[in-house]
């Protein structure tokens, strides 16, 4: 397997793109662009689009950061560039 600096950077960018896509979908997607469509669905007393804008996206952001930190740690070890 290719363990060069370039391959490491490609793996990093791949992870970044995945995280950015989810980041965009929950906030700008579910919270803004598709909010009115999602408002037809209810989560308890919350219309779903409103919930994403006022609550849901924040929870997803937290999960995203920790998931990213973990995945990035895995990539560091795989390419043997982690801190000693």
């Amino acid at each position, binding site marked *: 397997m290719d363990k060069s*600096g370039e391959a490491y950077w490609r793996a990093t960018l791949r992870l970044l793109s995945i*995280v950015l896509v989810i980041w965009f979908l929950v906030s700008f997607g579910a919270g803004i662009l598709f909010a*009115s469509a999602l408002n037809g669905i209810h989560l308890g*007393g*919350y219309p779903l689009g409103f919930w994403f*804008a006022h609550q849901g996206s924040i929870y997803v*952001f937290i999960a*995203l950061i920790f998931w990213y930190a973990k995945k990035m740690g895995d990539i560091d070890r795989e390419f043997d560039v*982690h*801190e000693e």
Partner: protein
Amino acid sequence: MELQTTIYLVVGLSFALYIGIAFWSRAGSTSEFYVAGGGVHPVMNGMATAADWMSAASFISMAGLISNMGYGGGLFLMGWTGGYVLLAMLLAPYLRKFGKFTVPQFIGDRFYSKSASTVAVLCLITASITYIIGQMTGVGVAFARFLGVSSSTGVYVGMGIVFLYAVFGGMKGITYTQVAQYVVLIFAYTIPAIFISLQLTGNPLPQLGLGSDLVGHDVSLLAKLDQVVTELGFGKYTTALPGSELNMFVYTMSLMIGTAGLPHVIMRFFTVPSVKDARSSAGWALVFIAILYTTAPAVGAMAKMNLIRTVAPGVVLKDQNIYAKETSLEYDKRPDWMKRWEKTGLLKFQDKNGDGRIQYYNDKAKSPDLQKKFADAGWKGNELSVNADIIVLANPEIALLPNWVIALVAAGGLAAALSTAAGLLMAISAAVSHDLIKGVFKPDISEKGELMAGKISMAIAIFVSGYLGLNPPGFAAGTVALAFGIAASTLFPAIMMGIFSKKMNKEGAMAGMLSGLAVTLFYVFAHKGIFFIKGTEYLGLIGGPNPFFGITPEAFGAIGALVNFAVAFAVDKMTPEPPEHIQHLVEMVRVPRGAKAVDGAHA
């Protein structure tokens, strides 16, 4: 105990705590003054970052704006949290690996030019001062209520306290003080919210209460709120947009990338022990921030409900007719909290139809149907104006909560404003004394002289922002949003290109920052006055308010950032590549191994 005495006591105790901690951990050397050594644990660092981050805008102002804006207020919630995802992935770990103290230092080294670092200092100061103006507005409101004076006097008192506070601290003092401030402010924010959520929905968790049914009703709180506010001519709470969907989109984006470009937040990530910690620190910061940010929408919605319940009793819980004459509250029977806030000049009543009762509604509602109902009810215009910035501070009073809760909220508001003002002043003083004076003009300055220069620049920054805070360009959160726009259009793109584009050269970065700054300030100053001085607006020149696709000046930072990127890449193509060693430097920064511990040495 009487309310005023309780407030003095609680605020006094919290101050004694911060000052005690600051004194106990006073900074000795310059490096301690700025970055507190390298040994701050990610969870502690996260808590301090959260206190640093959550300012008067988050604590005092945001829920009030959400209360007025409804769904559209979500742009603050998403914008000011989503930026942490960008920060954690795009900037923090790499800046930590780079191992410098300040943003201008990074930009100066990465773009191998003292001019680039000077441009970064200029952008940093513009953004930070604008931010502090917003804080001063908030501090003014808090002190006005707390001391029972006008909001201008409140600003003067705030200037004095912020000055004492920032000048004697230093980053190390601030880190531990800020952990204490976080604890005070988060309790101050959540306790009243829990009380109010219990009162209105029977659910103690505000995050769930907002999605629950109204107490004794089969209808959800939000559905009831939607119904009542529409009857009063306001936009439907769960769908009201801030101008347009496009504006909300751009506004949110601007706040997100501004978050990742603000110097006082970025500075925090230079101080964690390792690259690994830099990544998780951002996560921890967001956890602590989210406790307030997921509570805020409940505070906003429930404050709106309680305000309406106050001026039109029976409408919400007893389903009385909102247009009936007896429904409106008699002015002479108004609750004490209204009298207290009238003194600050931030809550005003004017009896337009002379019936001695308070009518609170949107008299500019477009629907002719509604206008007819208003006319039939004998209403002659909205009679109550409530400054959005008082909502959070007045919230426990509106809900008739015990005195100690009201006092706690006052202490929390001050903690939020002071901690952020101190963090920003620290960033300004580091930029001026370290990056500008030591780095460019007078490299042989003594450590003592550097500290002195830093303190003088803090004093000037406080004076300027306090002066402008007397006639603020908007509500605290709106002004702070402008600061984010400036950071978004200048520093974020430059730092990001510095890491992600190996070939970006100094000419590109400088041209990008300067054009981003120029475009954004041009648009903002057109609306808010040149350097925010009232009366110097030039809206005529650009064709009326929000001429660019209806985008408001607070949201314009995202456009400024696009301009920044575009200009930077265009100029980069026309000028020579960066030298070989800089390209190696970028490769080095991208890999965690070999991260330098931040030591006291200046580069």
